[in-house]
């Protein structure tokens, strides 16, 4: 038991608290998660590979990861901009806007899904003009998926960058400018490197969230096999066909991605903490 050793403390309740924590963590998270892994181990390697590399599955994985990556990139750029505007420019209504940035955290994904579909459908407020003017179909295409994933990933970059930006001393910029740097140089050489860990963390969080997203996507995606079918939907489809092995295989690929991202995010946060400490 690696948790058993600890330095003595006069405060009570350690054993009870840690006991509850480990029991609950095991029951709710660890045991069910390991079930998925064990299920995969009952497959042969060839069978697993066959499940995962079926053209329809591959297409769905490519779509989920690709769209999530683009959506996270969009959010990195615009999220940085929103954070910057919220911290630096006191415009009227800023506090309301600031509060509403968290809407994608609070709004159930199904609600977001049908709302976005209504807007971007061929007869929707934006869908209609886009279709008529630019011949651009958004809903029921991969573009629609991108819109949904951008929506649900929106707060991550804003909320990771914002506090760092608030702590960023104006003096740093003033120092750079007093040394002759232009606005662009100050931003590229002083501000951006300071924000980099937070920006990357936000990007990784938005990406992780978008890869696994289901509720907001299925309404707007159109769910055409090989074209606009995301990986989580693939799992559900296979489950509905009682193809547990197939569903689990896809799930394990996604779990592996989750773990890798979790590790990356932890490393990033450790990095940004170190950054902050060496600053102080």
């Amino acid at each position: 038991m690696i948790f058993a050793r600890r330095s003595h403390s006069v405060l009570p309740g350690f054993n009870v608290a840690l006991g509850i924590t480990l029991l609950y963590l095991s029951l709710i998270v660890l045991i069910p998660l390991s079930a998925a892994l064990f299920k995969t181990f009952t497959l042969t390697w060839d069978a697993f590979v066959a499940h995962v590399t079926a053209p329809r599955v591959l297409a769905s994985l490519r779509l989920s990861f690709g769209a999530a990556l683009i959506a996270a990139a969009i959010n990195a750029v615009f999220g940085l901009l929103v954070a910057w505007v919220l911290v630096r420019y006191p415009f009227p209504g800023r506090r309301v806007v600031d509060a509403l940035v968290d809407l994608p955290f609070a709004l159930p994904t199904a609600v977001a899904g049908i709302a976005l579909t209504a807007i971007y459908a061929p007869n929707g407020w934006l869908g209609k003009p886009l279709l008529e003017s630019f011949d651009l179909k958004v809903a029921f295409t991969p573009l629609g998926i991108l819109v949904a994933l951008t929506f649900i990933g929106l707060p991550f970059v804003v909320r990771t960058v914002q506090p760092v930006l608030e702590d960023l001393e104006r003096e740093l910029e003033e120092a750079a400018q007093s040394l002759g740097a232009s606005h662009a140089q100050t931003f590229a050489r002083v501000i951006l490197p300071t924000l980099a860990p937070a920006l990357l963390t936000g990007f990784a969080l938005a990406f992780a969230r978008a890869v696994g997203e289901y509720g907001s996507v299925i309404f707007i995606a159109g769910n055409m096999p090989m074209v606009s079918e995301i990986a989580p939907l693939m799992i559900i489809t296979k489950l509905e066909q009682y193809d547990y092995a197939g569903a689990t295989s896809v799930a394990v690929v996604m779990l592996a991605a989750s773990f890798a991202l979790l590790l990356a995010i932890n490393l990033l946060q450790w990095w940004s903490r170190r950054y902050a400490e060496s600053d102080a």
Partner: protein
Amino acid sequence: MAAVLDLPMSVVRPRARRVAGVPVALVGIALAYLTLFLFLPLFAVFFEALRKGWGVYAAAVADADAWAAIRLTLLAAAIAVPANLVFGVAAAWAIAKFDFPGKSVLITLIDLPFSVSPVVSGLIYVLVFGLQGWFGPALADHGVKVIFAVPGIVLATIFVTFPFIARELIPLMQAQGREEEEAAVLLGANAWHLLWRVTLPNVKWGLLYGVILCNARAMGEFGAVSVVSGHVRGLTNTLPLHIEILYNEYQFAGAFACASLLAILALVTLVLKTWVESRVARETVI
């Protein structure tokens, strides 16, 4: 003196004026982006819900299946939030007030459900409790149904909201340190006094914050619940699932009417969250 000050001022002023156009443009772009992706969808929910008038709206919300869905949603949240609350306090107490090896591993594991796809979260419970799963057949023999039933929905909801309260409390209690508790112990306080008179009052805002976010996610969860629900109308449909069914049956007004309830919940959540944040800011500023 004035002459000395004039020179640098006159150099700075035109530059400052030239830069002033940039913020307006940046604020404009930021607001346009937020309008496109945030405000418009939010507005669309209420617009679509009321498109056919109040009568249709009221009928959709008062529908028996809708009520059953609301009740189930409330039930799931009413179990998931307190369960995660007890866990969150216990985990934060152990992690923030004591030193033990493996602590950072534990913190990472607590965060794990955040990075797992909701659909995968549902699937793992099917693999444990489903008829093809580990305990499914044994449970079925005793007449206990977890998957495609209420227990599965509650479990899936607990899983996806698992880290919310713990991750609010852990950094907060770590930052507060142990001295107040040590002082209380030296003054004769027992474990009960510590919890109720020292520790919990100190973290009450963080706790409330976590509960608000946990509750919002619990009531709004779709993907995980969708996998374990079985979609039996009036029995295993939560409100988000009910919206899906209505939408797929082209009952758009009804779907958006139910969606508007959840959108209101989201707005209330944001208002409460902002209020808590301002309370915390005020208490730390003074």
